[in-house]
């Protein structure tokens, strides 16, 4: 199992996840850098992501949408804040409207990704920062709509796992 630990810090409003992969750092970096690889894992299983833009440099923007089971689309965007290939990536992730324009009324999450060599593989640490408790609360509340769609995909997988 690639996930080795996770830590939720309610005071710092962060979620940290540590995972290890049996592949070199440069290879794992490419799953972030290459939009065709990125879209194979960014969206939940039932909401695959399509990256229409992926400008992988500091200040660059990404634009994507996720397609639901009935063809419904949910838009998102990234703004790249730091790139230090192949070890560190920092970006802001937010919601976009139907035309792909960032929705300023929706909360954003800042994500810091660190890749480092570990044994024969790579340790990946992702830290998600939420802006405020209210925003985090809101993101969770949005589980009622946006998040629910995403969570639905996780449920399928959980069910599959627990019946295996």
């Amino acid at each position, binding site marked *: *199992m*690639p*996930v080795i630990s*996770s830590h*939720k810090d309610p005071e710092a409003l962060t*979620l940290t*996840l540590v*995972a290890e*992969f*049996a*592949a070199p750092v440069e*290879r*794992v970096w490419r*799953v972030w850098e290459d939009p065709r*690889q990125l879209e*194979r*894992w*960014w969206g*939940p*299983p*039932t909401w695959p992501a399509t990256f229409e833009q992926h400008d992988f440099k500091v200040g660059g923007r990404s634009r994507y949408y996720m397609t639901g*089971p*009935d063809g419904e689309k949910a838009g998102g965007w990234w703004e790249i804040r730091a790139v230090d290939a192949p070890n560190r990536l920092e970006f802001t992730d937010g919601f976009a409207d139907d035309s792909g324009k960032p929705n300023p009324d929706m909360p954003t999450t800042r994500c810091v990704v660190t890749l480092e060599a570990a044994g024969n593989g790579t340790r*990946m640490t*992702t830290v*998600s920062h939420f802006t405020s408790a209210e925003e985090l609360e809101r*993101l*969770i*509340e949005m*589980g*009622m*709509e946006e*998040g*629910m*769609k*995403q*969570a*639905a*995909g*996780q*449920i*399928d*997988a*959980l*069910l599959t*796992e*627990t019946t295996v």
Partner: protein
Amino acid sequence: MPRPLTYNHVVVDQLSDDEVDRIFHGLADATRRDIVTRVLRQEQSVSSLARGYDMSFAAVQKHVAVLERAALVSKQRRGREQVVHANPEMLRKATRLLEQYEQIWRHRVQAIDDLLSEDGEKGTEKCQ
């Protein structure tokens, strides 16, 4: 198996196993998830819901009944119509319970791992 453990651990805190089973069963089907999403936006009669799907009225009614048992939606009779609306309280609980962000990341990690493992097995069929 960290994921089911996490899931069980979370479950214990907030809802009974039966409730969780019903919620997960309720949401395990794409049509039912879609019904929940639709009635979250606006309450709807069973017949108007049924018009949105390529299945019989009875089949849609059955899906609604599953969601009702999970307390994810409630149904009220209004005249000849049965109006379905979402139960935000239960949805909120369910959503928290899922610890959505952590699960999303766990899935992403798994998907990355799957993607990376393809490198070594190009051209071979993957056994499940």
